[in-house]
């Protein structure tokens, strides 16, 4: 298997709310720490990427936000402009008036146009080789297949024309597991696990992109080892708890309750983890990221996540 960070293009997807952007941002940071010039792109710009790096809002033009790390956000209209400028040598502003006005319409009407402009821009950056690695904080599980399969879709719909010519080399990049990989982020909860299993199946069936790994985020630490839970149960007995209260100088109730909560949460999640492992092709590695008890989201939390990812990748 190609090492994850040795690929040139990594898509990061996952159900909403699982920490997709954090993982993509951490992956890019980790690559940078290992000497790779990295571009990270927020495909559905909500500003979460900028929040992760604690930098000012990202735009279509990549900007160096950390040494060796460039960040951008996707904008399909800008992508079209760039494409036209490069391929048709059409002067950009103003002159393409009708086309610019029609863009929204064409993009809306022609399925896959927005997707192809997104994937196309990312593939183009890979082909041009300005960066060692391009990380896409891609769309959520519902839309990623549409994005990844857009070049094929266009190939089927559009028989001739420049677009048709363009999809060939994109497919070459996307289909090569040495170059491109998809990471699905999940948390050990019911819906994220179900969606991850579904998505892995659809990606295999409907796209040519290699599933590089599943990244399990927010994994809770095991609180007790064998036999320790019995000890904990005895601690919770009223007489013992009273004794503890006296010794520790205050009621231990909340602490015991919190431990109980942590144990139950961990147990429920362990079941979902098993389901995930069983539902995914065994050759796909699962990487585990611990639940970060961080004060705030931002660079500090991001560095912790990158470190944990590095450890999981054996770096």
């Amino acid at each position, binding site marked *: 298997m190609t090492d994850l960070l040795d690929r040139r293009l990594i898509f990061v997807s996952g*159900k*909403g*709310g*699982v920490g997709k952007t954090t993982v993509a941002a951490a992956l890019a940071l980790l690559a940078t720490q290992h000497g790779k010039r990295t571009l990270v792109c927020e495909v*559905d710009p*909500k*500003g979460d990427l900028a*929040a992760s790096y604690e930098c000012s809002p990202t735009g279509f033009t990549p900007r160096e936000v950390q040494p060796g790390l460039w960040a951008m956000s996707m904008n399909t209209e800008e992508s079209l402009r760039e494409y036209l400028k490069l391929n*048709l040598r*059409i002067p950009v502003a103003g002159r*393409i008036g*009708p*086309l610019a006005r*029609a863009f929204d*319409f*064409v993009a*809306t*009407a*022609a*399925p896959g146009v927005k997707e192809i402009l997104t994937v196309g821009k990312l593939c183009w950056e890979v082909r041009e080789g300005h960066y060692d690695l391009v990380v896409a904080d891609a*769309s*959520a599980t*519902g839309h990623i297949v*549409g994005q990844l399969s857009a070049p094929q879709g266009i190939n089927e*719909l*559009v*028989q*001739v*024309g*420049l*677009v*048709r010519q363009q999809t060939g080399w994109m497919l070459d990049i996307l289909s090569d597991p040495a170059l491109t990989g998809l990471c699905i982020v999940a948390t050990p*909860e*019911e*819906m994220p696990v*179900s969606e991850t299993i579904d998505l892995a199946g659809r990606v295999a069936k409907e796209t040519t992109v290699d599933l590089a790994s599943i990244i399990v985020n927010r994994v809770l630490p095991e*609180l*007790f080892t064998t036999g320790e839970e019995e*000890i*904990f149960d*005895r*601690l919770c007995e009223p007489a013992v708890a009273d004794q*503890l*209260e006296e*010794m*520790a*100088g*205050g*009621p*231990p109730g*909340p*602490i015991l309750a*919190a*431990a109980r*909560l*942590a144990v*139950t949460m961990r147990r*429920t999640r362990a079941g979902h983890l098993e389901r995930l492992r069983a539902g995914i092709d065994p050759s796909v590695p699962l990487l585990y990221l611990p639940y970060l008890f*961080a004060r*705030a989201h931002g660079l500090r939390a991001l560095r912790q996540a990158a470190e944990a990812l590095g450890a999981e990748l054996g770096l």
Partner: protein
Amino acid sequence: MSPHPAPTASASLDQLLAAKEIVICCGSGGVGKTTTAAAAAAMAAVRHGGKVLVVTVDPARRLADALGLTGIGNTESQVPAAAFSAAGVKPRGQLWAAMLDTKQSWDDLVRAHGPDQATIDQILANPLYQNISGRFVQSHDYIAMERLYELHSEGSYDLIVVDTPPTRNAIDFLEAPQRMGDFFSSRLLRWLIAPYRSRLVNFASKPFYQVADRILGTQFLQDIAEFFILFQSMYDGFVERARSVSRLLQDRRTTFMVVSTLEASPLTEADFFIEALTERKLHLGAVILNRVLPDYLLDEGASVVAGTMEKSAGDLAARLGAKVGPPDQLERVLGEIASSFLNFQVVAQREAEQRAELSARPDVVATIPFFETDITDLSGLLRLAEHIWS
């Protein structure tokens, strides 16, 4: 004290379910929208009676099983009485549920508005139509609202609770009817398909076609044009419909329930959404904060105790004695639970701060505690609803 104290959160939330005809649940992905919508509907059926329908997009498998929703599509089905008796309640009304099948809903829409069978068949067979109805993201937004309109105008339900589909942007579906209407009535559209109708490319638009042909290929443009020419036959019905859907969202019988967790990103989206509702003069009925960590994690006394336990775990273990456990293991347990408490406290404190900010809003804010286990049946849903509405 004022003679008419402001209603408490739960009273007004209860009123909401009793007085409104449509409740739309929205928020960013992964915050528990579907579960909240189902819980609200179940609660309304139990307390207020009447026929209550919940329209969900993609419920968790076990929840769908529990509601008897597995395998059903667009058609509504009644949640069996057995599910309620298993939960130990006797509902005053009925609970119905339906899943949103985007493709099916689009097909129904075409059948309803198509001028004749031949056109209908042509549209349904058009590859572009199939793409748009199946994949096109905005079409999901629109069709959810369209389906809501359909169900509401049939008038067979007292209350309809809708779970909105995951959107790229939370407000997309609010604008979807407007945008669909604009889209089909746009001059641009007519201008674009005109030459394919008349086979006469007008002088002004010629450069556009040259460019478009080079990019997309003529055949593809013709496919697009054919699709829209066919769709134009449904123009009047469709635009009128989109306007009605828009009106329904603004109707005073409709209210919105914004669901969020206390994490940064969903909260930002919730804030954004609340503003969008206010701007559009839509009714914000409730803000529901899901998966809120228990208050005891904020206990200051406990953090002192945890500190002591962490520092002198060995000493405490020795003093508690072997009757509780072997000293080294007991020491580890005491240390672990203390540091676990302090870890969770960090998160709970961060969340409490964000909660305080939100409570400053005049809206109705309710919280749902963190449930340690998944909600897999009706009694779980009702338990969750109790937290919001009791």
